[in-house]
């Protein structure tokens, strides 16, 4: 798993400074306020999000230009200290030598690729802004294989509309095919000129300027092409975050 979102869950929202005794009245006020905001939270996800998200997704995909590269930055603009490490369950141990990337689902040529297979494919490098749902951003250089090149080798059937990404730590994500086929959506194994390190998603992770960070799965082991979205759409999405998350 990967990436960004705030770790908080609705039911863990009330946080007190437990080094201090909270006076009873203040405690009740805080508890009341907490319940109120949690109530609003559920209401938001049930109704406000339910009403607005499909519409915002329509608008988001409408203004998205699937084949238009997002302008990149010079190497000198890279912000190495700004990329925060987020993960929902720590960093999984993956042996690069035995690692395989599976590409399957509605494809005519399912693949199982080793890192050396992947490194023989054309390398694409880009310097882009990585934007986290939490509000921070970092300019990062990523190097890797264009996802659309991998998909092309797998020969997808014509009705494929969505792509699922499964990670070694149990994280999962799903994307619309347009964003998957964007020329700057990479399966990356380099960051800021170096080989990717485990905490940033080694051996292979998603990188793209067109999606929020929580869509950019680390430690990807399986890419599944499909014509339909299942009930499960992504770790954070299933907790209430928006699915499209396009930038």
């Amino acid at each position, binding site marked *: 798993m990967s990436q960004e*979102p*705030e770790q*908080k*869950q*609705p039911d863990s*929202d*009330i946080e007190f400074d437990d080094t201090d005794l909270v006076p009873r009245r203040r405690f009740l006020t*805080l508890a009341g*306020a*907490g319940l*109120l*905001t*949690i*109530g*609003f*939270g*559920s209401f*938001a*996800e049930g109704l*406000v*999000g339910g*009403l*607005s*998200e499909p*519409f*915002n997704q329509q608008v*988001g995909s409408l*203004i*998205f*230009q699937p084949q238009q590269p*997002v*302008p990149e930055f010079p190497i000198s603009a890279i912000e190495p200290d700004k990329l925060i490490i987020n993960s929902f369950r720590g960093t999984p141990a993956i042996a690069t030598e035995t690692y395989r990337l599976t590409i399957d689902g509605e494809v005519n040529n399912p693949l199982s690729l080793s890192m050396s297979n992947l490194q023989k494919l054309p390398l694409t490098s880009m310097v882009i*802004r990585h*934007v*986290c*749902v*939490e*509000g*921070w*951003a970092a300019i990062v250089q990523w190097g890797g294989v264009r996802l659309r090149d991998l998909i092309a080798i797998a020969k997808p059937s014509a009705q494929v509309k969505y792509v699922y990404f499964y990670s070694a730590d149990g994280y999962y994500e799903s994307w619309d095919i347009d964003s998957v086929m964007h020329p700057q959506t990479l399966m990356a194994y380099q960051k800021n000129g170096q080989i990717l390190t485990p905490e940033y998603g080694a051996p292979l992770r998603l990188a793209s*300027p*067109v999606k929020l960070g929580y869509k950019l799965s680390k430690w990807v082991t399986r890419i599944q092409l499909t014509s339909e979205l299942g009930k499960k759409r992504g770790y*954070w999405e299933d*907790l*209430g*975050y*928006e699915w499209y998350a*396009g*930038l």
Partner: protein
Amino acid sequence: MRSPNQTLTQKPIQKPIQDLPAKVFHWVSFVSLFLMITSGLQIYNANPVFGGRSGIHIPAIFGLGGWLAGGRHWHFATMWIFALNLLWYGFYVLWTRRWRHRYASGKDVKALLVSQNEKRKNYAWHRLAYTLLIPLLLLSIFSGLGMYKPAQFYWIVDSFGGWEALRITHFMAVPLTLTLAGIHSQLGRKVGGDRLLDSMFWE
């Protein structure tokens, strides 16, 4: 507000009257801005603009949505109401030519500089305050659009000189708007009292 006759001169009391569209705009702005600011502060708390995760967090009571995902739902739902309200009002102001006489102009600046009439000067300040709110609200939308879709609107991010500056601008719109709105309500009371207030909100 029409002429804010204070009672000193004992003229027959002329009630201020607001056109219905102005009242609708004012109400929708009032409510949607409240929702935008509270949900915005909820989003802010996920990673405070100043200091990051270890920075100063806004007390939870001011946040709307309960957690980041909920705050974002509220923010990106209300943004349509907030922005479209400004849009139709813009057309309305152009169409009715309200822009010619309802907003601060050179006359108000002149009054502030040279007038000896305290009431005229207050009125000029009042007009200036609510006039300034409009570009501030537009700036919030512009900077917000750049943060919401920074890849599609990369030129908005660039126009602020980068992500940090964009974030700070978008956030600073909150204290600036609250301050200006506070001044606006105080000046409204000063130039028109309860009658002006009632004319905009209730009558």
